């Protein structure tokens, strides 16, 4: 089982994702420089957080034209597991692998803090180790995390269980008071229709170790690792 972490100029959570996979979960992982795309050898790809291309113009807007992105699209279309975290989520929106767009946080400020999110769909490769409705304590750190999508698409996403995480209270209550950035429908993470591509604004890689205030982020990585182990045992190739 091998993970790939894509590195754009300006990515800055690449080392964190690498550290978690390699040293917390003891799995194989490699950095993939955006100019040297070779994705076939990986079982899962992570697009990490950061400021690809300085977030100039709009977060993810320049990264989508990077040489690696056509391969990322192919990889996703072939059913490969693809996780975009924070800036990675923004890139996935810009390139059209996920529906919707990000606006600037409603208070027009960067926000870094622990929040709570509720697992809305645990039948995905990224959440299968969570309980349905489980509340995760997890940090966010972004300026543009105010998710928006048109009402029609939102309905479709709801119908197809594409809304994976929503911001909530510690008890799991979903309301405006626990929406940190103004996101439509308190959305914190979504998947594509096939369920193999997940974008999330919170940072699971920032809460997998005891010294870091929460270990709830482990569930995301454990889900992925479990799914890949199951797949290895049934020898599915793609």
């Amino acid at each position: 089982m091998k993970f790939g972490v894509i590195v754009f100029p300006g990515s800055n959570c690449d080392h964190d994702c690498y550290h978690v996979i390699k040293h917390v979960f003891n799995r194989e992982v490699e950095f993939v420089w955006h100019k040297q795309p070779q994705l076939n050898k990986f079982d899962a790809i992570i697009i990490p957080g950061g400021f690809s291309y300085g977030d100039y113009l709009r977060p993810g807007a320049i990264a989508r034209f990077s040489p690696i992105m056509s391969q990322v699209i192919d990889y996703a279309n072939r059913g490969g597991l693809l996780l975009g975290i924070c800036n990675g989520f923004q890139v996935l929106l810009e390139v059209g692998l996920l529906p919707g767009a990000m606006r600037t946080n409603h208070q027009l400020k960067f926000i870094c803090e622990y929040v709570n999110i509720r697992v809305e769909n645990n039948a995905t490769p990224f959440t299968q180790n969570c309980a349905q409705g489980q509340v995760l304590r997890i940090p966010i750190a972004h300026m543009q995390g105010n998710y928006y999508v048109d009402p029609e698409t939102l309905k479709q996403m709801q119908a197809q269980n594409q809304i994976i995480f929503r911001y909530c209270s510690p008890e799991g209550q979903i309301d405006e008071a626990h929406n940190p950035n103004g996101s439509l429908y308190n959305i914190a993470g979504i998947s594509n229709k096939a369920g193999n591509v997940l974008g999330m604004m919170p940072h699971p890689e920032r809460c997998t170790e005891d010294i870091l205030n929460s270990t709830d982020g482990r569930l995301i990585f454990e889900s992925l690792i479990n799914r890949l182990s199951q797949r290895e045992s049934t020898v599915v190739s793609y």
Partner: protein
Amino acid sequence: MNKDIPITPELIAQHGLSPEEYQKIVSILGREPNYTELGIFSVMWSEHCSYKSSRAILKGLPTTGCCVVQGPGENAGVIDIGEGLVAVFKIESHNHPSFIEPYQGAATGVGGILRDIFTMGARPVALLNSLRFGNLSNPRNRYLFEHVVAGIAGYGNCMGVPTVGGEVYFDPTYDLNPLVNAFCLGVARREHIFLGQATGIGNPVIYVGSKTGRDGIHGATMASEEFDESSAERRPTVQVGDPFTEKLLLEACLELMKQNFLVGIQDMGAAGLTCSTAEMASRGGTGIEIDLAKVPRREPGMTPYEIMLSESQERMLLVADKGKEAEVAAIFNKWDLECVTIGRVISEKNFRVCENGQLVADIPVNALTDEAPLYVRPRQEPAYLKQVKTAPEIAEPTDYAQLLLNILSRPTISSKEYVYRQYDHMVRTDTGLLPGAGASLIRLKGSKKALALTLDGNSGYCYLDPYTGGMLAVAEAARNLVCTGARPLAITNCLNFGNPEKPEAMWQFEQAVNGISAACQHFDTPVTGGNVSFYNETSGEGIYPTPVIGMVGLLDDIDMRVTPWFKQPGDLIVLLGETKPELGGSEYLKYITGKTMGQLPGFSLIREKNLHSLCLDAINQRLLQSAHDLSEGGLGVALVECCLINKAGGLGVAIGLDSNLRPDICLFSESPSRILVSVKRDNLSALKKLATEYNVPLQSLGEVTPDKVSIQGLLELSLAELDRAWRESIARRLETR
């Protein structure tokens, strides 16, 4: 040489050089300088670059110790932290640019300190900053505050270096002169430290990073003058930051440093290309020759003067082994960065600048560095000191609950969540203690160890007594570190003062440095470097003397760390140290009178050190559930902070003061050398025994409760009321405009 522009007395004065200094230049060169050379001398001999007023006094600071690998004089200080690792750290001011253009001024301050750290071969792992503003009731101060914070966030967040803590004070003394001091910590392997020196005759001098533009010309000179109403016109002297390019520069430099052909490296900060070349040659005992025609430029038509003095950001100068130019270029090209060989190291100890084969400047290297003017400025005790020592008697308050709420909501006291929420403080996944908890902790991956960091300085204390104030700043920094269980190791300092040509300001400076020196000697925390910022005056009015101490300590096992918040109802609350009727310089007195006044609390280095030893020993014996140092706002504020800091779950207290002092004095006295701890019931007797051994007074106050802060016979407040007063105070003040 180009002698187009005549050198007149007016031109010399505009360059901030005195007639005597100009005569010195003429005698060094044996001729009149040309315009470009005048510019070079003016920045290199500016206060900012030459430390001409402070060098003589700074010599008194202790700079050696068993952990010091690199003391002052390099881009940053370096200390050994074991396991083959070193901590690299430094603090710098960006006060003047931040006043003129707060967003870019603060952003480039962060950019500059980051480059100082990775220039040494260390990956930056944490940022802190110390900020000072005037009162938020003034719209100009709100503007400065919000944009400085946004600028720090904009740069640090993009770099992927967490801003994990710091301090923010508000006082009218900073009304027209905010302070922005940025601190950075990096970690490197000891054998991979790089220095800013140009050695190896014939080696290429290579320029990397952003192109050179017309921004920031004379920034260093600007930072060496007082301000007046026309200062806004100086906006073009403030540089514009590009954190994205700096992030690429960071990664490219660290990649280069893994190779074995880098000889020396230095960032282009204040005085840009001029300072980096001169300092590298000076340290290497060599000369440097460069060709300006090769320098990448942002716009056509730039003169040699402009290129030499530009402070465009995100640029570095390096010297590599001859013949390795292509390999250096390959690394920078991978990161889409400029990389051009612009000159070479020469044996004549001269700084020689050409453009298209024509010599435009030729100056002995030493003239710019070692031979820069050195002044022993006159010093005189300021007259105000006699008037501010006596504080009036204050009446006992009638409503203690309201008093506590009012003190908690003072911006200097209240939670800084509004600020640090805008900083990415968790990237790199090493933040062992979230901001707002006194000291910060950075764990070292692959080791049990963690580094503890803090910035401290109380300018009100220094205004009343700069010597004791200097000592107290070091003491508070060390106290913050020991509360986590970390041993203090070393400091860096940022010394923000008024006009050194005024004997009163110079007296304050000398006193504060002597106080810092005495405390550093006693705590065995040498000074590894720092920064002096003079001329913090606008329209003739100087700021309070503001030395800021950045201290680094080491925690051998991060699992042993102690945090400041209360843990468990039923735990006992104990005050280590003694509360005396000492309100001089306190927030409480300032709240009542609106002024900083009074006699500073009595302070003993021996008592302070005993307290530190007690705290560390108690933590080693696992006696403490929590530990929090007492500082501004005294016991009253510390108690509430211990209840509220942990956002995941607040706890209350039920205590009695049991003191002969009047309750308000007992609650808000700022007697130093005190730590508030909580312990499990069973551990109280062991802690008492230990305190006796270390000769530290100890007082049991009461216990931790599930909710409510209750002080017997005085007040009872719900956590929600306290939280509203304390946590949201700054945000509230910004909304009501």
